[in-house]
């Protein structure tokens, strides 16, 4: 058998002829649509691919993307970043987190700024790399500032598991893991009596595929059932996204409303049962979590279970962490953008005071946010 190369895993899914082929099929199918449709790609990874590969340029005018809130870095509220900032500046502390988180500004600055003031901030590729840092610095307290959706939660749970099993005394956790379905639900159903609860323009969802590798596709069942919104769980390559769009349009044309999986090479209905059990063992749902740009979303995040309070930095450092509410920037319209009510360039501060280097709102924060993607790649799309 010939050896499998990394390239083999994605090259077919970026093939220009296949992409163009899907573009033609979509164009044909979209002619049968009776109205414009808005498809929300929930995940920042999708937004990144959509913009990087210029997919809107290959779609007919009656298909529109709404870029969703699925970037864990973008949605991190200032209050939580301030926690990281304060913790990082404590004596004898090394704050460890994942990549992009380092550059996101809170109200006091970013972790990069904390580092330039002398804080020891490190980024790791895998939460388990924290073990090595702890071993090399036995006299320091290592605080793992955990972020990410269901995709990265099991890795943090594994780290918790190892820390407890091996009785490692110098690793602590600040948990900011969030979950996807609850925020999707909030977007389509604000739940406010005096508010039009359908104050959005979402006609269908592309479901984040890596999340579903862990959770299974089952977490999206409520959308076709309760809200009459089709969901297609899609991979991140351009061919995946194009195929998923075709699947959505076909559902609408055939008057179906279903949960389908495009990313069949990794996702099934039930997901990774072992990873789910590990999450369940160490974490429980917090009452609510404040999403930058969207406000409080009930049951949309995890925290460590009470019995692990002795490794929970949020509890151990309670006395020094700031808990005041910080309002989102007033002119920022991220909330509207995430509901599909506005496009990034319709925001009065877009590209002027709000830029990737000085983001005011959540969508400008990481390359996976809608505004940052528009700023970086998007001007051509206005043609």
């Amino acid at each position: 058998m010939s050896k499998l190369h990394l390239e083999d895993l994605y090259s077919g899914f970026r093939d220009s002829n296949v992409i163009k082929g899907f573009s033609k099929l979509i164009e044909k199918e979209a002619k049968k649509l009776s109205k414009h449709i808005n498809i929300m790609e929930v995940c920042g990874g999708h937004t990144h691919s959509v913009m990087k590969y210029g997919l809107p340029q290959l779609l007919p005018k009656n298909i529109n993307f709404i870029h969703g809130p699925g970037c864990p870095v973008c949605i991190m509220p200032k209050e939580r970043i301030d926690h990281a900032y304060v913790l990082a500046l404590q004596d004898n502390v090394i704050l460890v987190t994942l990549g992009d988180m380092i550059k996101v500004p809170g109200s006091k600055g970013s972790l990069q700024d904390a580092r330039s003031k002398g804080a020891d901030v490190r980024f790791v590729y895998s939460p388990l790399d924290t073990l090595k840092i702890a071993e090399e610095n036995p006299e320091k307290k290592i605080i793992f500032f955990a972020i990410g959706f269901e995709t990265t939660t099991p890795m943090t749970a594994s780290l918790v598991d190892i820390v407890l099993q091996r009785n490692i005394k110098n690793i602590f956790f600040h948990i900011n893991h969030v979950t996807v379905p609850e925020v999707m639900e909030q977007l389509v159903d604000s739940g406010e009596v005096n508010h039009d609860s359908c104050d959005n323009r979402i006609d269908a969802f592309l479901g984040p595929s890596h999340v579903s590798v862990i959770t299974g596709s089952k977490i999206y069942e409520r959308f076709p059932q309760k809200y009459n919104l089709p969901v297609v769980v899609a991979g991140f390559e351009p061919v995946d996204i194009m195929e998923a769009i075709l699947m959505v349009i076909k559902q609408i044309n055939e008057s179906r409303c279903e949960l389908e999986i495009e990313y069949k090479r990794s996702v099934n209905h039930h997901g990774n049962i072992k990873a789910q059990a590990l999450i369940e063992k160490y974490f429980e749902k917090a009452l609510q979590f404040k999403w930058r740009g969207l406000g409080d979303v009930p049951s949309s995040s995890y925290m460590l279970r009470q019995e692990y309070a002795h490794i929970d930095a949020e509890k151990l450092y309670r006395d020094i962490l700031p808990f005041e509410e910080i309002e989102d920037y007033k002119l920022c319209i991220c909330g509207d953008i995430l509901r599909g009510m506005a496009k990034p360039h319709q925001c009065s501060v877009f590209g002027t005071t709000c830029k990737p280097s000085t983001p005011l709102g959540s969508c400008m924060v990481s390359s996976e946010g809608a505004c940052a993607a528009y700023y970086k790649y998007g001007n051509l799309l206005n043609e």
Partner: protein
Amino acid sequence: MNKNVTLAMGNGGQENNELIKKVFYKAFKNDVLEKAEDAAVIQNGDLAFSTDSFTVSPLFFPGGDIGKLAVCGTCNDLAMMGARPKYLTCSVIIEEGFSIPKLEQIVTSMKTELAKNSAMIVSGDTKVVPHGSIDGIFINTTGIGEIIQAGISSNNISEKDTILISRDIGCHGAAIFAAREGIEISSNLTSDCASLTDQVQALIAAGIEITALRDATRGGVSAVLNEWAQQSHICIEVQEGAIPISPEVHGICELLGFEALDLANEGTFLLAVKQEDVSKALNILHSFTNSLNAAAIADVTHTYNERVVLKSAHGTKRFLDFPTGELLPRIC
């Protein structure tokens, strides 16, 4: 600009340019400096003059070490102005406790690379600082070269030029990242670290009409193309599929969420040459082992002033911007 220096300000991209402009250009402002070329052109255009400091970690990496890098870096900056490197100075700051055999190894690499450039170190300085003050060893080199072909400048590129790349991109950045983060990959990913004098001089000797040359170091190919677009007030339209990228570099980018175009190179350069000279220039480059896969990658237009446009094989286009921030992996 931030009140404290951040690591992003050393990235070769946007923040770096801002620091240079707002602090250094502001203080040192003069006509030569403001041309913002790889090396300053002085003495009525006879000499090229450049300096560079090297702080790489790890000090030894696949394909080179800090010594080789220190000579290549400055010699390449001179070569990019059509000059032959002649004389270099070498300043070394060493951390207390540094191994003498390692130091000798580094100096031997410098000697080998100097010989390739027919250049010599004519003055130097050493400082030793207490343990913990620096990361092992920092090296600065400054060089003077004799300009063989005058008029090469990043400020004169026009629609008559085509833009070429000398080889596959991103090898240095990817090799350093893999070595630094201990990512064990069974591949022959090595830095492209190499002297470019011979290639440039061969192009000049063959009479190729070279408008501009620039080696794509920190900030990678993205930074060079954007600098050229701004300095020459042009639009550069790049055929994404024409850019050579090795499977190894592609793999690192896939794993860590990087763009190969943003990764640093240490022996890869971009050329703007007159359209009629493209195939001749490529033939010459293909005769060197360090540029076997040189390729034409972009045309010059005025479609979007001072912007770089990346055109995909599936018919879409997008802007390619300066790299910003630190190179950080995306998390999911």
